[in-house]
């Protein structure tokens, strides 16, 4: 596989990305480790690579010296000892493995696999069957995937291992981590994605063309169908969200969106692949754009993002409504063909994205999110995607939570996929970022769904104090007791405010001032001749308030706070 790429003189996305990796200076502090790791890895790689290729030694040496040879990536990929999680190595591994996984299986093999699983409940049964069929065949290639998967984040590793076990054992286990998220759709899609990933590995050996080219055709067909089904299923959602689902991310989210959404907590490596692949296919699928997705990685992240963004707005344009699904499918097919092409006018994508932005506020956001995800994909600098998805997430949150979550998942998946080579810290940050907004999204959604309860304005604020009371009581309290506490608190605060008002009037003022409060505290017995107010302030209040309340004399006869 790597040989094919190495010998490939065409500027495929993969090669470009490799070149970028090679040329780019490490920005993360893990560089030192990576150098060490690379040094360690070279001896490991050599025997392994020798098996696969003859250029092992030279590539390994080059790698140690960080030479810019494409073959290096291949060797790195082949080495299964990718435990060192240097950004570069991880990314390289991803690059190497990604095409493998994304390698287009013979249609006869792949199509039946994705099609049935995408169907809701029935898919599960079919997917495991298909998996079983494919698993024994692709054991050798899968061995690479697990190693690569293991190199991913710890969470990913756990999930992947679990998932792999589940896959081996049967359907019930594999969708286990996913079931909690959603129903069958997600699990089925995930399994289907898994099927795809497992199925693809053997292809690279047989097919000499870049794996990206083959990928798109199959997925679009399935994705659209799933997407349509999902649309119908999610008809309960507000129309805006539904429309949003269809429009901006119709293509990329077709397949991966449901699967990714469901597999949010544990984006499996394969899922990431599928998502990334789908995104790729959807992105370039736009008639305007040629490829946009992997190309950007090669030439520049921004460009790639632009291409993707361009792709999305274009798709959204074409899919002004849900009717656009069909043309989308066609477009997807076309995109698939174009996927392999290098990044075309990336700037056009951006422009298109900008144009789209005016159309829909949320769509561009999502596009941006996807773009960010793409960025993360090709992002050698892991921190960039961190910031961008984080920023995008916040605006995206305002939009339909589903879409944003889906996009975040996609981003997350992609980020995770790309972050494997990236420093684990950055990955954790990235993953945590999408996870946090995602987790934050779910509760708010549930709250807004229900009707708003009318609360008594007087007792609204007392609820908080009642809870404090129950907390400090250190024992369970009856509801009636809490109500009585609320009543007492209400009276108390009323008295308090009356006293303050009277005190202020007594001093001929209309504004309540701290002196009135001090008088009140004296009446309460908190402030006595022995204990002054300042003493209480120092005892109970944090330092910031103390600074404000207790005047302090500074040099130059200045008193803070000014009185």
């Amino acid at each position, binding site marked *: 596989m790597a040989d094919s790429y190495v010998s490939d003189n065409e500027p495929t996305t993969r090669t470009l990305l490799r070149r970028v990796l090679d040329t780019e200076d490490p920005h993360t502090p893990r560089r030192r480790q990576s150098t060490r790791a690379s040094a360690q890895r070279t001896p490991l790689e050599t025997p392994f690579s020798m098996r696969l290729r003859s250029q092992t030694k030279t590539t390994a040496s080059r790698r140690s010296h960080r030479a810019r040879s494409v073959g290096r990536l291949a060797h790195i990929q082949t080495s299964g000892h990718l435990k060192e999680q240097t950004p570069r190595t991880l990314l390289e591994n991803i690059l190497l493995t990604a095409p493998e996984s994304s390698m287009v299986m013979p249609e006869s093999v792949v199509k039946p696999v994705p099609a049935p699983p995408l169907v809701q409940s029935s898919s599960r049964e079919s997917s495991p069957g298909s998996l079983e069929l494919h698993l024994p065949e692709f054991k050798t290639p899968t061995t690479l995937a697990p190693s690569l998967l293991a190199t991913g984040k710890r969470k990913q590793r756990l999930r992947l291992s679990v998932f792999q076990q589940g896959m081996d054992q049967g359907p019930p286990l594999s969708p286990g981590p996913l079931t909690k998220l959603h129903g069958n759709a997600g699990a089925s899609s995930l399994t289907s994605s898994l099927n795809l990933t497992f199925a693809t590995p053997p292809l690279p050996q047989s097919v000499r063309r870049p794996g990206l080219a083959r990928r798109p055709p199959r997925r679009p067909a399935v994705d659209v169908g799933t997407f349509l089904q999902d649309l119908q299923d999610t008809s309960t959602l507000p129309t805006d969200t539904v429309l949003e689902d269809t429009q901006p991310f119709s293509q990329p989210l077709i397949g991966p969106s449901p699967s990714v959404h469901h597999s949010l907590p544990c984006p499996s490596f394969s899922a990431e692949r599928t998502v990334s692949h789908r995104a790729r296919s959807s992105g370039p699928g736009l008639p305007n754009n040629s490829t946009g997705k992997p190309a950007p990685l090669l030439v520049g992240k921004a460009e790639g993002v632009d291409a993707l963004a361009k792709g999305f707005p274009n798709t959204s344009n074409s899919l002004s409504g849900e009717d656009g699904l069909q043309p989308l499918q066609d477009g997807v097919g076309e995109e698939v063909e174009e996927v392999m092409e290098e990044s075309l006018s990336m700037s056009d994508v951006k422009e298109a994205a900008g144009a789209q932005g005016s159309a829909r506020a949320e769509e561009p956001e999502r596009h941006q999110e996807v773009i960010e995800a793409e960025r993360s994909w090709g992002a050698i600098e892991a921190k960039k995607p961190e910031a961008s998805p984080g920023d995008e997430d916040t605006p995206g949150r305002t939009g339909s939570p589903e879409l944003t979550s889906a996009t975040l998942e996609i981003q997350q998946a992609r980020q995770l996929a790309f972050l494997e080579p990236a420093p684990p810290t950055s990955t954790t940050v990235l993953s945590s970022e999408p996870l946090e907004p995602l987790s934050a999204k779910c509760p708010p959604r549930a709250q807004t769904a229900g009707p708003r309860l009318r609360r008594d304005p007087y007792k609204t604020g007392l609820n908080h104090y009642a809870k404090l009371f129950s907390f400090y009581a250190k024992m369970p309290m009856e509801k009636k007791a809490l109500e009585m506490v609320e009543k007492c608190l209400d009276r108390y605060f009323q008295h308090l405010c009356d006293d303050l008002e*009277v*005190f202020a009037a*007594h001093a001929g003022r209309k504004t309540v001032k701290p002196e009135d409060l001090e*008088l009140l505290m004296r*009446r309460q017995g908190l402030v006595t001749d022995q204990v002054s107010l300042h003493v209480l302030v120092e005892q109970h209040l944090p330092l910031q308030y103390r600074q404000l309340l207790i005047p302090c004399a500074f040099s130059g006869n200045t008193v803070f706070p000014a009185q």
Partner: protein
Amino acid sequence: MEEEEEGAEEQERFSYQQRLKAAVHYTVGCLCAEVASDREVQLSKQTIAAISEATFRQCETFAKDLEMFARHAKRSTISTEDVKLLARRSNSLLKYITEKNEEIAQFNIERKTKKKKKLEDGNKNSVETTEAGEVESEN
């Protein structure tokens, strides 16, 4: 020597306090007897003692509060406003005090008019001062 003086002072204060307490206790006893005869209820001595002790302590608190209120209003003399502020919690007491205050105010006004008349008549200064002193003391 200082300690002895302080000790003596304390003893004096204590004895003074005791005398005051005794006076309060006597007054409370008289009032309770009146109430008992009105309601035809018997009050034990412990009750009266408790009431007198509570009254005494409350008087101390009142004094401190009045001083605080006067200081809060940036005055050095306790006025009827401070007293009214003190009694605001109890509505009936507040009413009573307010009425009394109005009576006194009216009385003062009448007194002032009388004084003016007397002045116009050409009263002696000593009489005016004595009357002013009486008015002030009454206030």
